[in-house]
C-alpha cells in the first residue's frame, strides 16, 4: 500500500446519545452530525495540506440491524451531508473527491443512491483530498470479501497461477480502501476499534475522545493533530 500524505480515519460515534441528550425527536435527521463532518472536512482542507485522505465510518453492517428510525436517521444524515457538500460553492469543495465503500448498497433508499452516484460523478476529477465514506461497512466483512474475491480470481485464473506469488500487496488490491491509516479518531467515549479498517489500522495512532460527535470541535481536532505530531512512531523498530 502506497504512503503519500496522511490518511486519517474517523469513527464519528455518539450521535444517538447526543440526540437523546439534546431532546431531539425520534424523527431527528442527524443534521448536526452531518454539519460536523462538513466542518471537519473544510477545516482539514484549509489547514492541513499534509492530510490527503479521510475515511469516515458513516454506518456499519451492524448498524443496518438497528431499529427503523435509527437506520433512517443515519441514511438521511448521509443524504443531507452529501447535499451540503455538493452545494458548497467555495473553492475548497472543488478539491474533494468523494468515494463510497461498504456493502448493502442495494438496501439503501433510491434518493440516497442517486445522491451518491451524483456526488461521485461530480467530484471524480478532484485531487486535493480523497474522502471515503463507509456505508454498511465492517472490517471483518471487508476481509472475508477480499478472501472470497481472491479465491474467485484464482479460480478464474485471471490473477496469477502461482499461489506462492500471492503477497500482501496482491491481497490488498481486494480491500475496499487499500491505503494504510496514519491515525484514527473515535469520538463518543468507547475505547475499541469495532473492526474499523482493521487491516489498514496496523500502525495507526489511536485517539479516543469522550466528546459526542456533534459536539466535536475543530479545536479538539487541532489538539489531536498536535499530539499526533509529537508521538514517536516506531513501526516495530
Amino acid at each position, binding site marked *: 500500500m502506497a504512503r503519500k500524505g496522511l490518511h486519517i480515519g474517523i469513527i464519528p460515534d455518539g450521535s444517538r446519545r447526543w440526540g437523546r441528550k439534546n431532546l431531539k425527536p425520534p424523527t431527528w435527521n442527524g443534521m448536526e452530525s452531518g454539519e460536523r463532518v462538513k466542518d471537519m472536512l473544510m477545516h482539514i482542507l484549509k489547514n492541513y495540506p499534509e492530510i490527503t485522505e479521510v475515511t469516515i465510518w458513516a454506518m456499519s453492517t451492524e448498524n443496518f*440491524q438497528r431499529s427503523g428510525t435509527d437506520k433512517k436517521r443515519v441514511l438521511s444524515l448521509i443524504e443531507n451531508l452529501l447535499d451540503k457538500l455538493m452545494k458548497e460553492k467555495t473553492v475548497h469543495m472543488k478539491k474533494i473527491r468523494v468515494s463510497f465503500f461498504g456493502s448493502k448498497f442495494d438496501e439503501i433508499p433510491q434518493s440516497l443512491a442517486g445522491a451518491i452516484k451524483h456526488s461521485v460523478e461530480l467530484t471524480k476529477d478532484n485531487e486535493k483530498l480523497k474522502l471515503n465514506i463507509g456505508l454498511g461497512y465492517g472490517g*471483518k466483512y471487508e476481509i*472475508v470479501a477480499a478472501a472470497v474475491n481472491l479465491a474467485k480470481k484464482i479460480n478464474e485464473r485471471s490473477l496469477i497461477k502461482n499461489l506462492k506469488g*500471492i503477497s500482501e500487496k496482491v*491481497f490488498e488490491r481486494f480491500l475496499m480502501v487499500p491505503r494504510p491509516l496514519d491515525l484514527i479518531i473515535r469520538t463518543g467515549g468507547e475505547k475499541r*476499534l*469495532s473492526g474499523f479498517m482493521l487491516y489498514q*489500522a496496523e500502525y495507526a495512532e489511536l485517539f479516543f475522545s469522550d466528546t459526542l460527535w456533534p459536539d466535536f470541535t475543530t479545536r479538539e481536532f487541532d489538539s489531536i493533530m498536535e499530539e499526533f505530531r509529537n508521538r514517536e512512531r516506531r513501526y516495530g*523498530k
Partner: protein
Amino acid sequence: MLQIPQHVGIIPDGNRRLARRLMKQPWKGHEWGLDKIRTVMDWAKELGVRVVTVYLLSLENIEKRPKRELKYIYDLTRRELSDLIKNRDHPAHKNRTRVRFFGRLDLLPEDIQELIRMTMEKTKNYSDNFLNLAMAYGGRQEIVAAAKKIAADASEGRLKPEEISEAVLRANFWTNGFPDPDMIIRTGGEKRMSNFLPFQATYSELVFIEKFWPEFEKEDLVAAIEEYGQRQRRFGK
C-alpha cells in the same frame, strides 16, 4: 458483581525504554519483562482471568531490531522454556497453564522451534489457564496467509468461493481455536495496536497504560479489569 474478562491480551511495551532510563543496555529490560509475564500469570489466575495472550515478538521486530537484541530475546526464551520443560516446579505446571505459541514460528531458530514444540507438548493437557504467546507474529500476515490457503483450497476444488465465510477464514488463522480477547492492555504509553490480533480484537476493550511493562503492578491489572467492567459493551449495534 465485578465482570471479569475471560481473556486478556497484552502488548508488553516499554522494556527497552525502562532499561535505558535506568542506564542499562536496552535489552536488559526484556529480562525484567519476562519476569513480569510470569508474575502477571499468577495475578491473572488469582483474579479469575483464564486466558492471557502476550505479544512477545512481531514480524516487524524480527526484521528491524538489532541482531544482538534478538539473540538476547532468544536466549531468554531458551532459558525459560528449558526450565519449563525440565522443572516440575515451574509456574506453568503449578498453575496447570497450557502454553501455546503462534505466529511464523518457522522463522525462529531451529532449537527454539524444538523447545516450543516440547513446551506445547508438555502443557497440552492443562486446561485451568491458558497462556498464548505471539512470536514472529503479524496480524496482516496472518490474514494474508489464511486467504492464500483458502485460495489454494478453492483452486484445487476443496472449497467453493461462496462457501468462504468468517468461520472458514478463522479456521485458517494461526489463532484457530483461541477465544477473542475481551480486553487488550498496552503498557508503555503508545496508543496503537501494532498489528496485534486485528481481526480478533474487533470488539476488545482497549486499555492504554503509561507505565513501562516491567513497572506493571497488580493494582494496574485490577484497575484495568474494573474499567472493563464499567464500559458499556454494545457490540456495534
